[in-house]
């Protein structure tokens, strides 16, 4: 069956969306939308978005959605899921929300094997607030708070999220890192992360490597090159934990 160009689960009155030209969020949300359609779970999803660029997704889907605070999407989703286990709770956040201000929530939700799905977009900076250093900023990368490049001696090395989530979780968790440069793979990962929750297995986590030309100050070619050559080298793409079978690397 040929899929429609626009996912059925997208909320059309809010399209075109408000992300910057060249931003990867639209690709991630398209993959999520198609996964929701294919799994036929539009009426069961509760989508929760963080603050930062991810907040722009608050009315993106024709699914029940709620907006939370910076870093606090994980506990709100935990509350929803614990209250109504029949719902499918999907938290959507950036690298700042998940790995910095909300890291205690991500870490403990993973340890408790909360049956929620977290999709975290890694674009190596705080986009909405104007391009500051994120936990994922690469060594040497220039941001507004590291204008001479990130120095690991001063600010440490970039956070490797799926690696730490994989280390904390039981074998029933699903953990992967995808990239907007490999769409079909990304959609498969997101689908697996949703299925893992639907089957009641455990915590499901997908980090997505994404682009931010506005704050990177890059043209199209440079943007893609930074994603594929720099980011994917530092942040390996693949499945770290897959209860459905052998993870692909």
């Amino acid at each position, binding site marked *: 069956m040929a899929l429609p160009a626009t996912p059925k689960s997208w*909320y059309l009155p809010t399209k075109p969306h408000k992300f910057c030209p060249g931003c990867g969020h639209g690709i991630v949300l398209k993959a999520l939308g198609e996964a929701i359609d294919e799994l036929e779970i539009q009426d069961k999803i509760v989508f929760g978005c963080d603050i930062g660029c991810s907040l722009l997704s608050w009315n993106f889907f024709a699914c029940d959605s709620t907006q939370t605070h910076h870093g606090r999407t994980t506990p709100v989703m935990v509350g929803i899921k614990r209250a109504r286990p029949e719902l499918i709770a999907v938290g959507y956040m950036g690298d700042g929300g998940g790995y910095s201000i909300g890291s205690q929530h991500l870490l403990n939700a993973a340890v408790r094997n909360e049956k929620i799905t977290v999709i975290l977009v890694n674009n190596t900076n705080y986009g909405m607030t104007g391009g500051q250093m994120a936990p994922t900023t690469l060594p040497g990368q220039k941001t507004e708070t590291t204008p001479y490049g990130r120095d690991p001696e001063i600010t440490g090395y970039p956070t490797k999220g799926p690696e730490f989530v994989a280390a904390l979780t039981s074998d029933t968790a699903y953990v992967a890192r995808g990239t907007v440069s490999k769409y079909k793979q990304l959609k498969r990962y997101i689908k697996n992360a949703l299925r893992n929750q639907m089957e009641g297995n455990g915590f499901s986590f997908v980090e997505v490597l994404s682009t931010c030309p506005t704050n990177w100050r890059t043209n199209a070619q440079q943007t893609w090159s930074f994603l594929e050559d720099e980011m994917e080298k530092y942040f390996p793409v693949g499945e770290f934990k897959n209860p459905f079978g052998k993870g692909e690397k």
Partner: protein
Amino acid sequence: MQKVVENTKKAFLTGNEAAAWAALAAGAEIMFGYPITPQNEIMHYWTRLAPKYGRNFLQTEDEISAGFTVCGAVQAGKKAFTATAGPGNTLMQEPFSMAEAMRLPLVAIIQQRGGPSSGTVIYSQQEVTLTTFGGNGEGHRIVYSTSSHQEIYDYIIKAFNTAWKYRFPTFVLGDGYQAKMREPLEMYDPEERGIELVKTFPLVGLEGKIGEEREPQHLCNIYSMEEELYEVVMKFAAEYEAISPEVVEYEEKECEDAEILILAHGVVSRAADDAVKALRAQGIKAGYFRPITLRPFPGKQLREAIAKSGAKKMLIAESAYGQFDRLVKQEIYGETIQINNLFMPGVGIIDTDIISKVKSIID
């Protein structure tokens, strides 16, 4: 839902135990909590009792998470609550502020401890400002200040109804003394007393096929334009003002001919009540006024008490350095009654403290 208290019965409990029973009797379905003294036993009793009645509990990673998980659970349509104190109350101001912004029927029990910082684990009335006006909002909250175990039981049941009826976050403000001491109370099933339990409803996860039977729900708490936020806050303010007269509660004794009015709230009002009796026995015409709701504040009723008594003096007694005093003053702005204070931050106040203070004022 299974009845928790079949027949009305006398009990001799700590306040924390009474709180857990009250939440059960009110039909609370899930508690999210994080350990902090002096509220711990609310969790301890809840974790023992809840499974027997099919209720749930989650110990979260911190108070921020406890508050936000409550926000999530009430959005999903379940009666959820938390309990905290002191630094935990500070951390919870963030989720409380979201509950204010999104009109979430969050219920929190606060057992005040000494502050600032970790202060003491024992007692104070120093979380009045935080509980009434904490967070980056306008204080659109409902706060009941209890003074006895019976009231802890009564007002926790009421708090769930108030929260779900009006959709303003609702607080039961106790303290370490009320939390830890034992005293008798009557436990009852609210419905047998004619107290109808307000029905819950989900804000997300609604029934029905999206696009055919219903629209998707999109809840937000951040706005692109100043005017959008302005309209939301002004609407909340108007609704809060409108419901205030039916929410406000207070207690008043011997004010008709009083020369001096004694104001206190929470457990200190018991000392004030005793002090008024003792002073009257000694021929000193003292009156007693106690707001039960600190938000909204019974300001109109207090002005009426001042007017009908013709009292020239007032004494405000609290176990804090003027937090309650500020609430009172902003409510009676323009009155000419002389205001005196008995501020004892972080320590208990007994009747003799108030009696000697009154005598020093009227002499």
